Each structure stands twice: as structure tokens, then as C-alpha cells.
């Protein structure tokens, strides 16, 4: 314990040094942020404020990194508790400042932009380490840091028996750091650093229990499928650089209106710049936000520890894609076609994931599919140009989905690592606190009136309808059906886990207990968030005429659907809520009263088809594996590997060179035979052949013969 205290003191000292350092450093950046007052004292106060806010910004960014370093490299010295405390504390500081800026931005929506130092400058490409803090960043900041804080706290208890707790905590903090880099970047390249960093940390965290083959497979799948999206995003950034000549947000976004109608040639194809770049960026978002076609990694990622699922795969990493869409809204807004594509993809994802979630048996998988479905909502909100509503739903969703995952973790923890819902049952009386939390989470997810999900989801659907386009109507109805499915499977989950008669083994139920404070406290916080966040924040985020997202989100005037969404007829407005409540009731009735009839799902061949189809996730995995995976593997082995790599390159590369070297060396050593006349003969051959080479350009003339005679 003495060691731990010492290390804590060291940490505090480094903290003060840190503040001092950045305070000093910030003097270099004299950015005129608040130059309004002429009073000298006021100015001093302002400069104090600016300097302070720089230190605060930097502490938001780098405290998670410091915590990660401490836990990762010095976890052995500071001990388990020490590393947990240090990293949690650093995240707390970061979280505190994020909330500070978030709340202050209600009163004065200032955006801060400062540039630290150049990263690379290659010909016309200048990239700086710069940071941009605006309203969009603040929103994601509070989501990331508060969920991260709670998850740190939670996992300190959840995996306290694991010998690698400091490593885990270090990964979590590192993930938070990269996420902050992603959302605070002021150019695409720096954003890409964070983008890849979170991908890496996601890989490490899914694979945390690296001795489990399932975890390995899921982790490889996650990073592999994300790679496709990253590839798209990288291509998008390249195309952007090609078109604009810069990757800074400020330059790119101010340049976009001049790019409309411009096009470039790729081979013989002519592409519209704005559409092409928007599409590529959207492919990146598809990968990260698990939209249809690249979604398969997300449900498998639940193989990681549950806090990871809560932090990464419910609250943060999947929001990166949405953040990217919202951030590049000034770009995407100019391409209506791509907006329709986005809407279509989002709506399809929402429906697909909701129907798949209906018939999953794994507790966490249901929640994962519901995450996927909600992301579909958010993305089609972006597609109908309601970015602010999308971001609002993102924040709400982060709270209640983290709550759901953490509750699931609590259940799994209590019952001894059993995840199959059919084998649990009857926990409502044994775990009343977890039960109540999960009820709150499920209701918020289902869009029960006046919980946070209600405010955002309904507004999304209203906006979609209010777009008065075919894509909008499509997504509205799809979204309503998905809302029905969502509440249906939420209640199914509740019922199977908590309300139905106990189905598990007796031994598991004997030792059951409510979890410790460290697990319960995050649940309480998140439950409060799920209940009240939507209500409190609604007006500033999505209130008509609210100036909260003043500069950070751009909505083209001809895409502004909020007004038409606001004045829809009330039966349209009430339709989604009705569907949600109808779903709840039907699910409840079905499972309570007609439970014995459910067996027909498996007996009736038509219904069994649906059952298999939904339970097997629409056969996406099978499709991918058999069509792409197998053929790709066989192609890779038969052609690229054995024909090109081991064939062509081996023969003309290493093998060929070494063989020919041996051959030449032996034949050359014959040449040096030790006989003088051999040497002279080879030399003369050289001289003669070269003489002809010299003479060949010249015409025949007497002197030619003279010289030939000379040489003879």
C-alpha cells in the first residue's frame, strides 16, 4: 500500500506539471477568442480564461493517455487498485472538463480551434496537429468520457479477479484517448489516426481473453471488416485531397460549394467529385457504424468482456461513423443522391437488425442487434439531413444502450457467465435492482413516452416523413416497423431473463447476489441519464431555431425538414409511438398467455423458415463466408499465392537470382583459368566488339580500313 500511495503522489505531481506545462505552452497560442472588452482588467481576466481553457482542453485529451500509460507500463508497480484508481481518476478529470464545456456551450456556443505543431509537410500537403472543439465535439465528448468513466468504474469490479486488470484498464483508457483524438481533430488525416486507433483498441479489447478461440475469431473479424470501411474512408480522403488540395476541415468545407458539378476521371470513368467523396466517406461510416453489409462484426464483438461491449460497441466506436457523417455534413449535403443512399442503408439496417434481434437467444446478442438497429435509425436521420436529431439520438442511445449492456453484464456476472436467455429466467426477484435498471433501459430503447429514447426516435421518424420524398417515406414506415420489433424484443428479453420461470441450473441460482457498488453505481447514473437526458437536452439540441450546433453542422436550406416534421398531422406523429407500445403489449401477451403456442414457430414449415431466417441473421455470414470467403481463399491460394508469389516472384526473385548466381559464378571461375592467353583473348574480344560499336555510326571510308588493320 505504501507503494501505491507513493505512486499516487507521483501522479499528482505529474498532474501539476502537466497543467503548468500547458499553461505555459498556451501562451504561444494567442488566439483572439474573446476580444470584446476594452477594459484592461477584463482583458486580463479573459486571457486568464483562455489560458485556463487551453489547459482544460489539453487535460481532456491527454489525461486518458496518461492514465493508459500509467496502467499499461507501470501497472506492475502501482498495483491493481492503483492502476484502476489512476486511470479512473484521469478519465474523471477529462469527463469533468467535458461536462464543463458542454454546459457552458449552452450559454455561449463558442468553438475553439488551435494548432499545436506541424506533423508533416510534403510539397503542397500540410498537416498540423490541430484541435477543433465545437458543439458537435462537446456532445460526443460528454458521451465518450462519461460512459468511459462509468465503464472504468464498472470493470474494476467486473473483472477484478482477472490477473491482467491493469492491461485491460490501459486498453480502455487508450481507446478513450484515440476516440478523443478522432472527435477533436481538425483535419481528416488526424481524424484518421483516431479512427485507426479506436479500431486497434477495439481489436485488443475484443481479444482481451486471447486464449478463447471465439474471441480471437471475433476480433479478427472486427478488424478485418472495419478494414474495408477504412479503405473506403482512406480513398475518400485521397480523393478529397485530389479535388481540394487540402485535408483541413476548414478549407475543405468552405471549398465544397465550388466543387459542385465538378468531376474527375478515374481510368475512363467520370465521377462527380462531391458524390464520389461522400460515398467513400459513407463507406467508412458503414464499416465503423455497422450498417447493413458491413455489420457482421458488431454482433460478434460481444465475445469481448461486457464492459467493452458497453463502452465500445454500444456507446462510442459505433458513433464514430455517425460523427464522421455529421462532421462532413457540409460535404454530403451537396449530393442528394448519396443522401438517399444513406437513408436507404440506414433504414434497411434498422429493419434488418430489429427483425434479427427478435429471435436471438444470446442475451448480449439481442442487445448488440438492437445497437445495430438504432444505428440504422441514426444513419437514416443523417440521410434525411437531420444530423442534429441523429446526434441527439446518438447521445441518448449511448446512455440507455450502455445501461442495457452493463445490466446484461451484471446479470451474467451474477449467474456465473451464462448468456443464453433460455437458461436463465426468473431473476426479477433475485436481482431487483438490475431488473429495474434493465426495465428503464428497455423502455427508453423502445421509445416509451417521456423517456429519452422517445424524444429522439420519434423526431427522427417525423423528420423522415417530413422530407416528403420516397426515401423519407420508405424510412418512416421501415422505422415504424423496426420500432415495433424493438419493443417486442426488449420485452422478450425482459420476460425470458427476469419474468419467466427459472430455467437454469440450481447451483447457479444458489450463489446469486446483487453486484457490488462499483457495478451498481454506473447503472444508477446511466439509468438517470436514460430517463432524464432526453427531456432536459431536447430543446437545446433539436428545438426549433436552437443555435446549439450553430457552425458544426451544416444543413442545406432545401434539406431543412425540421419545420415540415414539426407540423405533421398527429396520426402520423403518433404512429411510431403507437407501434412501439403495440410491440410491447403484443410481446408481453404472447409470452405471458400464449407461451405454449410458440412451439408452432418451429413445427409449421413456413414459420420455421422465418424462424431460421431471422435466427441465422438473414444468412449474411453464410453468404459472406461461402461466396467471398471461400472463393477468395481459393483464389488467393491457387493464383496469387502459388502462381504469382511462389511462382513468378520466386523464379524471377530469390530462387532465380541465387540459382543464376551459382551458375554464373561457376562459369566465371572457369574463365579465370590461370592461362595468360585466355585472359588476353577475352580482353581482345572485348576491344574488338567495342571497336565495331564505336565505328558503326560512321560511314565506311578508307580510314575505317586503316583502323581495322591497326586493330588487327
Amino acid at each position: 500500500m505504501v507503494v501505491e500511495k507513493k505512486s499516487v503522489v507521483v501522479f499528482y505531481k505529474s498532474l501539476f506539471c502537466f497543467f503548468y506545462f500547458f499553461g505555459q505552452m498556451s501562451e504561444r497560442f494567442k488566439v483572439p477568442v474573446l476580444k470584446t472588452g476594452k477594459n484592461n482588467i477584463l482583458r486580463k481576466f479573459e486571457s486568464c480564461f483562455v489560458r485556463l481553457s487551453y489547459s482544460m482542453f489539453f487535460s481532456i485529451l491527454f489525461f486518458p493517455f496518461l492514465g493508459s500509460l500509467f496502467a499499461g507500463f507501470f501497472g506492475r508497480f502501482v498495483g491493481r487498485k492503483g492502476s484502476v484508481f489512476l486511470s479512473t481518476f484521469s478519465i474523471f478529470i477529462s469527463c469533468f472538463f467535458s461536462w464543463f464545456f458542454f454546459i457552458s456551450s449552452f450559454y455561449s456556443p463558442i468553438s475553439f480551434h488551435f494548432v499545436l505543431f506541424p506533423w508533416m509537410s510534403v510539397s503542397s500537403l500540410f498537416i498540423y496537429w490541430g484541435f477543433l472543439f465545437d458543439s458537435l465535439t462537446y456532445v460526443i465528448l460528454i458521451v465518450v468520457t462519461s460512459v468511459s468513466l462509468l465503464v472504468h468504474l464498472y470493470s474494476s469490479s467486473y473483472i477484478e479477479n482477472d490477473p491482467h486488470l491493469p492491461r485491460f484498464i490501459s486498453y480502455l483508457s487508450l481507446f478513450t484517448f484515440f476516440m478523443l483524438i478522432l472527435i477533436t481533430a481538425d483535419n481528416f488525416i488526424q481524424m484518421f489516426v483516431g479512427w485507426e486507433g479506436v479500431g486497434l483498441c477495439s481489436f485488443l479489447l475484443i481479444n482481451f481473453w486471447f486464449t478463447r478461440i471465439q474471441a480471437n475469431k471475433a476480433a479478427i473479424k472486427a478488424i478485418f471488416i472495419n478494414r474495408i470501411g477504412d479503405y473506403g474512408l482512406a480513398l475518400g480522403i485521397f480523393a478529397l485531397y485530389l479535388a481540394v488540395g487540402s485535408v483541413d476541415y476548414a478549407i475543405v468545407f468552405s471549398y465544397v460549394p465550388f466543387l459542385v458539378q465538378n468531376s474527375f476521371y478515374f481510368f475512363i470513368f467520370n465521377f462527380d467529385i462531391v458524390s464520389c467523396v461522400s460515398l467513400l466517406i459513407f463507406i467508412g461510416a458503414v464499416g465503423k457504424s455497422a450498417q447493413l453489409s458491413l455489420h457482421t462484426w458488431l454482433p460478434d464483438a460481444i465475445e469481448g468482456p461486457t464492459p467493452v461491449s458497453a463502452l465500445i460497441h454500444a456507446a462510442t466506436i459505433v458513433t464514430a461513423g455517425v460523427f464522421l457523417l455529421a462532421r462532413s455534413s457540409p460535404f454530403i449535403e451537396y449530393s442528394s443522391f448519396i443522401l438517399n443512399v444513406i437513408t436507404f442503408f440506414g433504414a434497411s439496417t434498422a429493419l434488418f437488425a430489429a427483425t434479427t434481434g427478435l429471435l436471438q437467444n444470446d442475451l448480449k446478442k439481442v442487445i448488440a442487434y438492437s445497437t445495430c438497429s438504432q444505428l440504422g435509425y441514426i444513419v437514416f436521420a443523417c440521410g434525411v439531413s437531420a444530423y442534429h436529431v441523429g446526434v441527439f439520438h446518438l447521445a441518448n442511445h449511448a446512455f440507455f444502450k450502455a445501461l442495457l449492456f452493463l445490466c446484461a453484464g451484471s446479470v451474467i456476472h451474477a449467474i456465473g457467465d451464462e448468456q443464453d436467455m433460455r437458461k436463465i429466467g426468473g431473476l426479477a426477484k433475485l436481482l431487483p435492482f438490475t431488473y429495474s435498471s434493465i426495465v428503464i433501459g428497455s423502455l427508453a430503447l423502445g421509445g416509451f413516452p417521456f423517456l429519452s429514447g422517445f424524444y429522439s426516435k420519434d423526431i427522427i421518424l417525423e423528420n423522415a416523413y417530413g422530407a416528403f420524398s420516397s426515401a423519407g417515406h420508405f424510412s418512416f414506415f421501415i422505422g415504424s416497423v423496426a420500432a415495433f420489433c424493438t419493443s417486442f424484443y426488449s420485452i422478450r428479453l425482459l420476460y425470458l431473463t427476469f419474468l419467466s420461470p427459472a430455467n437454469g441450473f440450481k447451483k447457479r441460482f444458489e450463489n446469486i447476489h446483487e453486484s457490488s457498488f462499483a457495478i451498481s453505481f454506473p447503472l444508477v447514473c446511466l439509468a438517470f441519464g436514460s430517463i432524464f437526458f432526453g427531456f432536459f437536452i431536447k430543446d437545446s439540441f433539436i428545438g426549433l431555431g436552437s443555435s446549439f450546433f450553430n457552425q458544426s453542422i451544416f444543413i442545406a436550406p432545401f434539406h431543412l425538414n425540421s419545420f415540415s416534421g414539426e407540423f405533421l398531422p398527429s396520426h402520423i406523429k403518433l404512429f411510431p409511438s403507437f407501434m412501439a407500445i403495440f410491440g410491447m403489449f403484443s410481446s408481453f401477451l404472447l409470452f405471458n398467455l400464449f407461451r405454449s403456442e410458440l412451439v408452432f414457430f418451429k413445427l409449421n414449415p413456413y414459420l420455421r423458415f422465418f424462424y431460421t431466417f431471422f435466427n441465422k441473421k438473414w444468412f449474411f455470414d453464410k453468404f459472406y463466408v461461402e461466396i467471398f470467403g471461400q472463393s477468395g481463399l481459393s483464389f488467393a491460394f491457387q493464383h496469387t499465392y502459388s502462381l504469382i508469389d511462389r511462382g513468378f516472384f520466386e523464379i524471377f526473385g530469390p530462387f532465380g537470382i541465387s540459382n543464376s548466381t551459382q551458375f554464373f559464378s561457376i562459369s566465371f571461375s572457369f574463365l579465370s583459368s590461370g592461362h595468360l592467353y585466355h585472359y588476353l583473348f577475352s580482353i581482345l574480344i572485348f576491344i574488338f566488339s567495342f571497336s565495331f560499336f564505336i565505328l558503326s555510326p560512321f560511314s565506311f571510308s578508307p580510314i575505317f580500313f586503316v583502323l581495322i588493320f591497326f586493330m588487327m
Partner: protein
Amino acid sequence: MLTVIALSIFSLIGSYAYLQKNYFFSFEYFFLFILAVFSIAGLPYCFDFIGVYLFLELQSLIFYTLASFNRTSSFSTEAGVKYFIIGAFSSGLLLFGISLIYGACGSLNFEVLRVLLFDSNFYNNYHIILCFFGLFLIFCSFCFKISAAPFHFWSPEVYEGSASSVSFFFAVVPKISLLGTLLHFCSFAFFEFSFFWEVLFIIFAFFSFSFGSFSAVCQKKTKKFLAFSSVTHVGFIIAAASTHSFSGMTNVFFYLFIYSFLSISFWSFITFLNAQCFFNRSSFLADFFLVNKQNFLLGGSLGLVLFSIAGIPPLSGFGAKFFSFISVVENGSIFLSFIIVLFAVISCFYYLRVVKWVFFDTSYANKGMLYQCKPFFSISFFESITFTSGLFFSCFLFIAPHFFILISHRITLALF
């Protein structure tokens, strides 16, 4: 000139122990040695073909003598005779080339030649042919002297046959001066013919790469191996010279410096081996086996030297090859640079093979050899000085090469 003298002092010190042991510590040796140094040092200062010819002949006559200095050895005699015969042939070519150029231009002075050849009204076809032939023959004879392929045949045999100290001297000292002279009259007198001698350089470079590296791969004898590898080095050097750019010339001399230092350390090691053992241990490459076991420091530094010659990045051999390569790439001759890379790989291979002998080879059949040598090497003060200074320069010149780059810059400035 100072460079040449410094190099020869190094080589003399390096072969001190060897000379002591082999009893030809006679005064003629030093006399000839100093005369050779004089001729080599004076060569670049010639401004006239007469002077060039005379200094070159003086140098080669002394070298013939030195090569056959060990009268009791039939190897040495054979080496001397072969060197002499081929050398006489090459000086015949030189003389004939000079006579052709004299016939075309009517002068033997570089300054006059330069003025004449700059004037494009001066020549017609016959002049050009005569000058081409003359230049070509002079090139051939210089390539004899610097042992560029396909005129390199004498060098492995002479290195092998003559005494180690003499080969040491042959390998280290004359190349810089000979190449300096060649580049001097190329870029001074025959500046207008650069399109021609660039091609010549490229062809010789190509031949040197291929002959040198392919022959060195399967070579078993130490000194022959070194001769062939020096042929490859000459290839790299004249490839850099073929660029006919200022930086290319600078890199030629930089490469020559580094090559000299590397050769100093490696050759001095060979003379140690010769001096230490009861019989001629260094004649085969396989005799290097487990030097590391006998003297760890020596083995380690030998490994460092070999890595440097092979061109492993932080060491200076890499720097030299890299600069040569860069100047070729800057010149835009992609094919040549590709060939340079290819043969750099092969040359890397055969040096690393020696490293394998030094450190790892335990499978050598004749382990009794080990007992015939002293269990430990002991190195005298002079030897250690040569070896370590060569080692120091050769390994760390890439880190702070400014001084030598400056010198090569000055030399290059003096060429034009």
C-alpha cells in the same frame, strides 16, 4: 597526395609484423615502396600525356618488382610475371591510344587538348574516330590498372601470389590516384566527349559488377575473394563516375575514401592472421572460422567491418553505396541503378558468408587446425592502431561524413 601518403603509411604499419615475420625486411623493399608512393602521389598532378605515361610506367615497374619480391616463392614469381606481361600489354594499348590522340590533335598537353576539343569546328569524322579510339584505348589501360572488368584478370592472381603486405598496398593505395587521374583527363581534356566516356564507364561498371560479384561468390581463397570484391567496388565507383555530374564525382571520391578505410582494416586483419599463425592461415576463407572464439574483440570488430563492407545501413559502406546509387538515380539512368541494387544484394551475400565463417561455423571438418594456431591472438600496438582506425572510419563515417565529403568536394573541384 596527402591522402595517398597517409594511406601508404597505414598500409606500411599494418604490414609491419608480417614483414618482420617473413624476413624481407630488406632496405630495397622500403626504397621501392617509397618510390611507388612517389609515383602514385605524383600521378594526378600530371598535365601532359608524357607525364602520365612516365608516372604510370614507374608505378607499374615498381609494382611488378614488388609483386615478385618474394623470390623464394614460385607463386610470387608467377604473379610478378603475369602482372608484368599483362601490364606491358596494357601500356602498349595506352601508348597506342596516346599516339592516336596525338595524331588527331597534334598535342599531348591537356590544356591544349581541352581548347582544341572545345572548338566544334575543329573536328570532322576522322578526328572523332581517332579520338574515340584513343580515348577508348587509354580507358582500357587505366581499367587494367584499377582492375575493372574485363581487364581485371591479373588482380586476383597477383593478390594471391604476392606477399600479403604487397597485396595490401596494391589494394589500398593506388586506386584513388589512378581514378583521380582518369577522371581528371576525362572531365578536363575530354569534356566534350562526355557522351562517349559515360557509355564507357557504364559498360565497364556493368562488367565489373558481374565479373566481380559472380566470381567472388564461389571464391574460396581470401585474397582472391578480396580482389574480386574490389572489382565489384570499382564497378560501384565508376558507376557513380558515369553520371558525369558534380555530385557523382564527389561520390566517387567519397566511395574511394570509405573503400580505402575498409580495405585497410580488412587487409590488416589478414596480415595479422598471417603473422600469427605457424603457416599461411589466411589463404582460405574457411580459415577464418571461429576467429570470434579466439579473440572476441577482434572477431566482433571484424564482423563490424564486414557488415560495413556489405552495406548494412548505419555503417559507412552503406553510405558509400547509397551515395553512388543516388547519384546514378539523379542522373536518370534507371536501368543502371536497378543493376546496382541487384549486385549490391549479391555482394552483400558473399560478405555475410564470411561473417558466417567468423562467427557461427562449427562444422569445419579439420578441427585440428585450431590447435595449430595460437589459442589467443595478441596484437601489437601498431597493428591495433591501424585496425581500429580503419574500423572507426569505416564504420562511423556515415554518421558524420562531413569532413570526407568536404575533401572529396575539393578533389572534384580540382578536377575541372
